[in-house]
């Protein structure tokens, strides 16, 4: 589908370095000389004013979540509009943490994401390398099929997929999330093919002339050079797996097996109508760690998302 747009599909559009977004100065170009210094400062101020409004709209719901999570139930009932908690309380956090197995959910989400990411990195870069550089019969047709399957919304296969998992005995097991996750990701294959195409062919030619096997070439020449692509893919896949909801919802039944979003949704079903301070504490427990990881790794994460967006997502 995306092949109709050469400039997006062309491997060169995916810079293998993490320079996709110059987060600050490098991307900034001074305005034309005819604009006076004062005018430039004014337009910068206007831009900031516009963006501050947008930024506040982004941050306010999170801020309100935090403030609500520190309020006591009497305060929430008496005065739902009060801004600051009075008194501040950590009870909501303790109660939410004790009511459902959040620690377990974090472990589940972490190890599922780690396995799916690691597996996808291997299988997708192998397939991406083969589609980019190895000549074999049917390669073209198979690659087009891979692309075509991206057009099928995952939800279309929800019911047969569930029935298949029943047959395999994987319902209410993490296997149902892990194995298909790491073995069936056409987008990852497509992305890794793009990254391999952006590598110079000369890299492997000497090794091919020497008669080195494909596995050795892949493992010791291609993979080390694919690091930026692998980093981007890990971030995209990890985000996807971490936030997945519909498939875990139908596949998992035991609370101890739940992933973080699933447990959060179950928690809301149980306590949502009782105490929303508690619900906001649960939301904070399940979002703040991710937000901290994001702030620490923002440069890499933003660049990866931009690269994947330009490459076909």
């Amino acid at each position, binding site marked *: 589908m*995306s092949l109709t747009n050469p400039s997006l599909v062309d491997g060169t559009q995916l810079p293998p370095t993490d320079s996709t977004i110059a987060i*600050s100065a490098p991307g900034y170009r001074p305005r034309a000389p005819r604009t006076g210094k004062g005018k430039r400062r004014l337009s910068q101020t206007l831009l900031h004013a516009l963006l501050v409004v947008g930024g506040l709209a982004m941050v306010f719901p*999170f801020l309100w979540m935090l403030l609500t999570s520190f309020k006591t139930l009497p305060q929430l009932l008496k005065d739902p509009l009060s801004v600051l908690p009075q008194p501040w309380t950590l009870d909501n956090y303790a109660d939410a943490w004790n009511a459902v197995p959040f620690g377990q959910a974090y472990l589940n989400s972490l190890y599922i994401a780690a396995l799916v990411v690691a597996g996808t990195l291997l299988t997708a870069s192998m397939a991406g390398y083969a589609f980019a550089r190895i000549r074999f019969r049917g390669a073209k047709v198979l690659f087009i*099929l891979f692309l075509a399957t991206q057009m099928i919304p995952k939800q279309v296969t929800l019911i047969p997929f569930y029935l298949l998992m029943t047959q395999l005995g994987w319902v209410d097991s993490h296997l149902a999330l892990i194995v298909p996750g790491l073995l*069936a990701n056409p987008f990852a294959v497509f992305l890794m093919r793009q990254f391999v195409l952006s590598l110079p062919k000369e890299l492997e030619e000497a090794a091919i002339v020497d008669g080195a096997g494909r596995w050795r070439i892949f493992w010791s020449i291609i993979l080390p050079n694919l690091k930026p692509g692998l980093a981007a893919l890990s971030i995209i896949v990890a985000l996807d797996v971490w936030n997945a909801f519909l498939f875990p919802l139908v596949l998992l039944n035991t609370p101890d097996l739940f992933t973080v979003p699933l447990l959060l949704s179950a928690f809301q079903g149980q306590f949502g109508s009782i105490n929303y301070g508690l619900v906001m504490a649960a939301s904070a427990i399940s979002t703040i760690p991710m937000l901290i990881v994001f702030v620490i790794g923002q440069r890499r994460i933003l*660049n990866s998302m931009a690269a994947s967006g330009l490459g076909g997502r």
Partner: protein
Amino acid sequence: MSDLATGERMPQAAPAASAPPPTPRRESAWRRRDRRWGYLFIGPQLLGMTVFVVLPFAASLVLALASWDGLSELSWVGFENFTAQFQDELLWRSIVNTLIIAVVTVPIGLGLAVVIAVALERLKTRTLYLVLFFAPVVTSTVAVAMIWQQMFRADGVLSTTIANVFGIDPPDWLGDPKLALLAVCIVTIWSSLGLNVVIFLAGLQNISPSVIEAARIDGAGAWRLFRSIRLPLLSPIVFFSSVVAFISSLQTFDTVYVLVSNAGPDNATRTIVYHIYDLGFGKFQIGPSSAASVILLLLTLVITAIQFGAQKKFVHYEDDAA
């Protein structure tokens, strides 16, 4: 070194995907082995795609034409599931709601993202803004929906502010059927905005500075630069993002499941995927649910085809200009 260099030139002359080794005899043996490597390398993904995507996909087409309770024998019913679905008021409501969400969120969301990306590109320091706009993208849709549920409370901060400013009764966002759908749209735009901002910003930065400089020397002002240079050069990326955004808004589920608990009030925010989920896992109707899945697939294909048809008119490719 020199014989390596000649070895390097050979494959460049041939359009081969990989470099053939020098001697013909070794070439054929190596080639044969190489072909096997090709299949081995795509093997895991090919197997996974076949078992976990293609097979279930084929099965959903089959199940859409059958009546089956999952246990007893499957019986063919032809297009009965489809005719029943098309007479189901809930399916039509799901389709209309889903299309409303797509038609409202995609243009507004992408438009806002373009404006913000253009504004960000002109700033000296933008890290903080990027982090703020992107924060909802790294937050799970379930958490986003729960956070917004608090924002939309009838006695909440948003409703009360609106009531005070406009002198009306505080709107009951999640209780009023029309407002509930609007609330779903707002949350969808809010949570996906940052992704498009980041992609468009990267696209703007890929525009060669010399093009902008040349237009500026010709006397183009800020608006003219945007309208005639930046926007056309960005349009392929905007188009691609619009296809992705349209497809993903056709798949809206998490938000309506959590924000307005179970697509309420009274199915006012029921979407196609919720319809599929409800038929399949709420009512255990495998056939009708599969028929609804096929309808989602057809809708996705038709809308994507329309978008690709429309792109000729609105999307500018650099190759055309050169």
